[in-house]
């Protein structure tokens, strides 16, 4: 049996890779993907905890996370397509004016 710490470390590493990706890249699509990666690291941890606590509520939470991320991706990509029509680039820096 693999100790829970290993799952913790794995998901932390994945999470940090995702966070690093968000920092490093400027392409909106890749930012999205990094966010998905971070969400998945959390999911992994939830499933691991569910097994270690013998409680399937955590797996239900994973469902809801998947659901929310599916909704998020659909809306996010729609926004991206719309932005792309305005300015044919996916660089996030070009949309600084959205802060207003």
């Amino acid at each position, binding site marked *: 049996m693999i100790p829970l710490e290993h799952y913790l470390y794995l998901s932390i590493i994945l999470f940090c890779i995702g*966070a690093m990706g*968000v*920092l490093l890249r400027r392409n909106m699509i890749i930012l999205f993907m990094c966010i998905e990666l971070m969400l998945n690291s959390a999911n992994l941890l939830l499933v691991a905890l569910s097994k270690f606590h013998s409680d399937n509520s955590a797996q239900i939470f994973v469902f809801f996370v998947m659901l929310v991320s599916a909704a998020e991706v659909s809306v996010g990509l729609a926004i991206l397509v719309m932005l792309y029509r305005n300015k044919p680039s996916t660089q996030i*820096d070009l*949309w*600084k004016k*959205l*802060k207003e």
Partner: protein
Amino acid sequence: MNLTFAQIALAALPFLPLAGFAVNGLWGRRFKETTIGIVGCGSILLSFLLSVFLFMANLSGSFATVQVRLFDWIPVANGSIGFSLMADPLSLIMLLVITGVGLLIHLYSVGYMHGDAGFARFFAYLNLFIFFMLLLVLADNFLLLFAGWEGVGLCSFLLIGFWFTNESYNAAAKKAFVMNRIGDLGFLLGMFLIVFTYGSLNFDQVFTAAATAGGANNATIIAITLLLFWGACGKSAQIPLYTWLPDAMAGPTPVSALIHAATMVTAGIYLVARCHVLFSLAPFTLSVVLAVGVATALLAATIALFQTDIKKVLAYSTVSQLGYMFAALGTGAYVAGLFHVVTHAFFKALLFLGAGAVIHALHHEQDLRNMGGLRTELPFVYRIFLVGTLAISGIPVFSGFFSKDEILMNVFQHHTVAWGLLFIGALLTTFYMFRLLALAFWGEKRGHHANYVPMNTTMKLPLAVLAFLSFAGGFAGLPEFTGLNWLHHYLSPVFSDVTLHNEPHLSIGVELGLMAFTVLAIAGVIWFYASRFKHLQTRELNQLNGELPWYKKLPANKYYVDEWYNRLLVQPINRLSDFLYRVADTLIIDGLVNRIGGMVLSAGNRARKLQSGDIGIYLYVMLAGASGLFLLYVLLGS
């Protein structure tokens, strides 16, 4: 849950009109008038048939009261307030009146409202009104009754302002609404007090608790009853909250007949009668009720003498008659009060519908000064109107005679001065009604054209039926001494616990004597007016408002009550509000808020510079923060 057929009927009763409302309200615009009429009248007809069924079942003794709990409405600490309906003889009588008269008025409206743009809306509102009214009389707890109470108020508001393009009609609707709200406040406070005192809103529980607690005239029960009566005053247009009812005549005439004469305004009477256990425990409140009733009856009657709008006369007459009913209740003669409710529903509906027929025929002319001589032109309406007038005046054999006589008798027994005042009121009633009749139908034609709008059968039939009922309705409650007072007998289980009157009854001789005296006096008034009406009419018609002597000017201007209300209540409130607006609101509250807002704004302006819009930096900062937190945890946590 095994329901008896009676329970199913009871449960279905109020919801048939609701269904009618839904159908007409949702799809009415697409329907033809015939369809709307069938839906509107049909739903009422069905509930009328159900009412008759329930009534017959009750008469035949298959049940004393029937109850059905539809669902738990509001769960509260101990038990829950159910959405439950109950029918006992009191409710059943009201039920018959509401559905029966309602059905007739619906039928009448099909003809009356023909061609109106809001035909469907009108019927939807009427059905909704019937629904709420049924809810009101069938409720088995105060809260549901209050729901119905508010609902009828809403429908009344909607229907008074039915022709909402007219600004003054809207004002009238608003006035009715506000006045009702003032009354509702009393009702609501009364309910709070009831819950606080007895821990329940269910009629049975409250009454049982009150009866077992006993202690007549203790402060709590007086407070409760006074508050409930305050609510009843609002709904039933008693002093001091009566001024909305005459204004409510802005609505279509069938509405006036149904809501503002036959049913809704009697909700106050119903409430008092329903809570007779409480009221009987508070003789002080009863004397207040009596005083208010007598005062209203007399005051409204005097105002009615000088009105020139056909509907206004009838409106003040209604207020006056409601005063009679309250007077009866105030003496503890609940049955007499209810009897008058029933007969009044018949003849006042008849009178209003008759007036409506006149108005309809004369192309919406409502001013009595422009009528006259219609006796030959509209013979059917005239006959109808005559029956109504005789009934309200208390001519023997007509229904009004029996009911009013019973009231007078009871009041006489109780309080002679009150009787005297009511007696004068009865004479005044006769006088203004014959004045109305004379101005509209007798004499010569004044300023109206001959092309009358014809009446169709749907309008005539209800009038005929109501005329018959106004004539014969009184036989339900023949005087006590005959031993044939069916209504009294029928309602006795409800009022079995009324123990206020243990004084001996008047002897038959005194009763007959009083009756004869009243009748003679009334007949005298009629003879006096009939013989001299031409003179009286010409004098009245030629006299302008300004020329009247003060004792006539005062009632003619409704004792300036509206003006006094305006000066004493509305204007001070306006001024206070104005002051509060200028000083408290603008300077203090707004100032504070604006100052704070300004501070936030300037702070935000400074902080805004931090937001470069570069997501990378945001994220980096966020990440650094998270790292810092974890670092803190590592350093401190271990």
